[in-house]
């Protein structure tokens, strides 16, 4: 058996049967297995997410009973893929003391991901948070409304193309530019 050929590090022993099982059972659902600094990340097709999550929660070797966290990410300036929005699911297994991360990436035109609230009820608030800041629609969520921003807020503030605005100051028409255009962005320059 070739063990995790995509990874440039050895994943934890306990995770091997999980990865093998995932590959055997959900061959077509897995887009990529990657990792960094010892953390294993599995990128999935969004249509199969709930199925894979249920398997990961219930299978003997996995038993990921806790959804630790969902991180919304906008990869606009990170890589060139059109699916710039990402939901990153962090799962934890009490039984085997393992962690695994799942990623699902979608485009801003079609930002729909099936909700995993049916698998882990604890996904409720984290999915609302990712919806609030990134506009990812979690289909099947019981109450997908904004959680931190006001209800009537327009736009999704943590997207990378969200306009930040500058501030006019009352000194001969001076203007403080928005933070992403200030000169220290990307390194100190003299202009």
């Amino acid at each position, binding site marked *: 058996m070739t063990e995790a050929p995509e990874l440039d590090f050895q994943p934890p022993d306990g995770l091997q049967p999980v990865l093998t099982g995932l590959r055997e059972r959900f061959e077509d659902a897995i887009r990529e297995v990657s990792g960094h600094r010892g953390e294993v990340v599995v990128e999935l097709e969004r249509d199969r997410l709930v199925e894979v999550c249920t398997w990961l929660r219930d299978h003997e070797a996995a038993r990921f009973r806790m959804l630790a966290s969902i991180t919304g990410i906008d990869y606009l300036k990170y890589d060139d893929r059109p699916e710039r929005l990402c939901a990153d699911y962090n799962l934890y297994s009490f039984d085997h003391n393992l962690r695994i991360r799942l990623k699902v990436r979608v485009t801003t035109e079609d930002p729909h991901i099936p909700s995993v609230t049916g698998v882990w009820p*604890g996904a409720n608030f984290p999915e609302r948070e990712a919806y609030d800041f990134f506009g990812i629609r979690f289909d099947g969520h019981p109450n997908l409304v904004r959680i931190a921003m006001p209800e009537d807020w327009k736009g999704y503030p943590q997207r990378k193309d969200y306009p930040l605005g500058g501030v006019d100051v009352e000194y001969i028409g001076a203007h403080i530019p928005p933070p992403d255009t200030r000169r220290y962005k990307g390194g*100190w320059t003299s202009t």
Partner: protein
Amino acid sequence: MSELEVPVVQPGEAHDLPPASAAERVSVNERRVHQVVAMGGGDWAEVTARAAAEGQDDVMIINMGPQHPSTHGVLRLVVELKGEEVINLQPVVGYLHTGIEKSAEFRTWVQGVTFVTRMDYLAPIFNETAYCLAVEKLLGIEPPPRATALRVLMMELNRISSHLVWLATTGLELGALSIMLYGFREREEILDILEDVTGLRMNHAWVRPAGVSQDLPDGTEDKIRAFVRDMRAKADEYETLLTNNPIWLERTKGIGHLSLDELIGLSTTGPMLRAAGLDHDLRKAEPYCGYEQYEFSVPTATGSDVYARYQVRLAEMRESLRIVEQVLDTLPGGPVMSEDPKIGWPAKLALGPDGLGNSPAHVQHIMGESMEALIHHFKQVTEGIKVPRGEVYVPIESPRGELGYHVISDGGNLPYRVHVRDPSFVNLQTGTPMSIGLLVADVIAAMSSIDPVLGGVDR
């Protein structure tokens, strides 16, 4: 609805007072009495519409908070009541949202510390440490051993102070005023120690990537040892006051019960989970900062109610005292900041006649001896460190549970994304199942046992 024509004012329009017939004679406040201000936000519209549709005349929908002394800051609870019984409860958060995660994307890696320390303001050292551990994991470096040990020392002191606030406020909310005074009294001693070490009582920004900003000042170790000695007796004092106190038992036993499966399903971590009998503690399960070298146990309880959570938190304070003593006994020497000139913060602080500032020796070094050191100092302070491209998630055990930092770097001097898995935010989901069926007064106890800190929830 009554026969009187009551004007309904939508949110945001409340200033638009309806013309009253005798407007000249009644004051504005009197006119306000005759208008209904429609509340908005959260589930309000949905809940009221449902109640109206189902004809639940006896159901009362009440806003508890966001300004309410016993909701721990700005937590708002939309409570549906049938008489005195809670039939539904929805936490509404966001009143303290300050966009810290977004702001952190436009500051350097070191400046990020000053943001994250303001999230969970009762456990600032934990936020700083988790953030710095994530940055260090991306960098692939370890801080000097003394810095790691000092982080553990400060985290455990901070854990005690955080649990003390929980004990004090919960006591206050349940009518035990003495415990409130005692809790804040001892917390003050810890804050004094934290102030000695970091310069501030909260928002320390003391833990920095690749180390900590300052070493312990002279005399702090003795002060901490004296505190640990006193604190043991104080913990006994709390126990005498509360553990067998019939009123305390009556208010906490059997209140807010949730089964272990429910807690795990709702992603609950920390003392709430341990009070249901699962000895899960990230300090043991996934040790960081060298926790494996200290001897301590993970207290658990079986009741899974407010009382069990009280037992666990009290026992955790004692365990933290044990760790603090062990750290002091085994404190290694050496630097507290990485000496790698490309990573470690260059400024060496010292107390001069005009206050805290760069130490004369350091100024002499960069201004008179080494051009290279001056360049490094300048580049570090203006441009900051560059962190290799990658993504990491670092969880640590904060007083409230798993505090996780998901940090992404695109290889530059600013973070690409910092996401915080705040335990208060996730644990708050237990509020709904825990409160249904309780009386209003018990909701206060149940919500308080979550120990939510809204600065962390809303970020």
